[in-house]
């Protein structure tokens, strides 16, 4: 290992199934809008990657309000996947997004396997898109509403269909609401995913005692934020130990130490979600903090720490 002086800039580059990132820090889908919303508050070009809000085939109005509620060290959301639809996304958002230096990944979602395939097809040749992330937490309307993300064969099918229509790096985003996350990861790996990202939100609920009504109009919603970090880290650790494709860690990441924990557990990159809301420049702080960490640890490259958590008696 090379010795690192305080002046050496550590190497933060990582590669995710063909996607080359200047650093491992990306923004999570649905928590960074279409990036433009944050452009006054941080330098977007410093980000390792940007993942935009989930896009469906048709525009979706989303759920009725209230859609969000704060919980202990977390929040529940039931946005209902409000988005402008793939065609307006390409026409209205991509012009601006294509000018960004950071790789852009588009998160996609559908109610049927065919929908996923069709969205991917339409995005495939669009200038400025570096990869796709498949959100499989959505219910499959044709299969009685069971989420694609809870049945390995269904997740594999979606992956295969998307794989068929695009050469873009393909990330499949896993839902944590399953008994066996490793099984899910292996299924999509086998179906051609270039990487997996995890976790999406945990399903949760909150009730207002006084009015006796659910705090979300949708009754249930997705739990995110620091509260879920331990669950996310455990799943990343389990999956990274079981698949060969790169893993992207997501869930409650709020500072550089959090991000490092995920890399040590085996993630090649990370995504920051809820933290963007309360600290818009948190991603930049994390990138800076990762550099400091590497210097302190006497490492020259972030790649050298991936999966190096010391679980044995080796010390």
């Amino acid at each position, binding site marked *: 290992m090379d010795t690192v002086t305080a002046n050496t800039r550590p190497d933060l580059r990582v590669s995710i199934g063909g996607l080359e990132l200047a650093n491992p820090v990306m923004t999570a889908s649905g928590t960074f809008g279409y990036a433009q919303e944050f452009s006054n508050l941080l330098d977007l070009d410093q980000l390792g990657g940007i993942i935009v809000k989930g896009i469906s085939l048709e525009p979706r109005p989303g759920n009725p*309000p*209230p859609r969000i509620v704060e919980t202990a060290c977390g929040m529940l959301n039931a946005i209902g996947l*409000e988005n402008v639809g793939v065609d307006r996304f390409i026409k209205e958002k991509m012009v601006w997004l294509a000018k960004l230096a950071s790789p852009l990944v588009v998160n996609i979602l559908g109610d049927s396997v065919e929908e996923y395939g069709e969205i991917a097809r339409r995005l495939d040749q669009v200038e400025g898109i570096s990869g796709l992330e498949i959100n499989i937490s959505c219910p499959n309307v044709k299969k009685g509403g069971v989420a694609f993300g809870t049945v390995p064969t269904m997740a594999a099918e979606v992956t295969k269909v998307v794989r068929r229509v695009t050469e873009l790096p393909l990330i499949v985003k896993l839902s944590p609401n399953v008994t066996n996350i490793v099984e899910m990861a292996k299924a999509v790996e086998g179906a051609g995913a270039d990487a997996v990202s995890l976790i999406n939100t945990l399903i949760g609920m909150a009730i207002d005692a006084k009015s006796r009504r659910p705090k979300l109009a949708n009754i249930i919603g997705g739990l995110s934020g620091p509260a879920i970090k331990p669950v996310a880290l455990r799943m990343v650790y389990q999956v990274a130990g079981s698949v060969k494709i790169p893993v992207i860690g997501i869930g409650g990441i709020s500072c550089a130490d959090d991000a490092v924990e995920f890399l040590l557990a085996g993630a090649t990159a990370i995504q920051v979600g809820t933290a963007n*809301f*309360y600290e*818009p*420049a948190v991603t930049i702080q994390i990138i800076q903090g990762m550099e400091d960490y590497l210097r302190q640890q006497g490492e020259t490259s972030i790649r050298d720490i991936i999966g190096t958590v010391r679980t044995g008696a080796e010390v």
Partner: protein
Amino acid sequence: MFSVVKTDIRQIEPYSLVAFFMSEFQENCPIETITRSASDVVCITVLASQIARTACPGQFVMVRVGNGYDPLLRRPFSIHACDQKNNSISLLFKVVGQGTAMLAALAPDDSLDLIGPLGKGFSFGNTPACLVGGGMGIAPLYFLASELAARESTNDHHILLGARNREELAPFVDQFSGLGFAVQTATDDGSLGHHGFVPDLLDAITPFAGTIYTCGPHPMMENVVRKCSQLSLPCQVSLETHMACGLGACLGCTVAGKDGYVHVCKQGPVFPASEVKWTL
């Protein structure tokens, strides 16, 4: 400052609006003064040069509470006053929960992490103006009133304020009177002014041919909007919802608009009443 918006900005795609009209800043703002009234109403004045320079009445800031993860989300507060000479803005709020309690406990050597100015504030409509405020909804109207007072004679305008009782309302009356306005008041318990609700005061000012600006509890605003639509008066309302980002990114701050959902943090918080879906 307080620019007159000529084009109907709601025809423009909301996200390009950002680039046109707004630039928000994240500022670490030293607290200049913090005062707490008998009725648990707190006023914090902070140095915030960038925000003070660009803020318009009706806009808001997102305030970080504490340094930990509980509470996690920033809290939205309207800009109550803006002093461009001294580069300061003031927030006025009631202690209603954990976040406001923590803010109330701050001291003048502490600082506040703010993002702002955010959202779309009031737009200048036909004069005269009639400001109708209830409870803490009066907070943003003071900034609006200051701008009005700076432009035109205060005699032209109407200020109608309501609250639960004298204790809550009196400090506001002093503030607005200080700007030179005659203030009409209503209290739930009759301890100051009209015994009843503030929308009742609208009856006394008709015939009126100007613009109504209102902020307050939802039922109160509904009443105001009902009267305005009966009288065919243009009305601007300032809405509140739960917000996670304040930036138009989380899509959490939805309310039902005339056609489809609107996002309060970006397309509002101030809306022409006609753009919002009411259950009148």
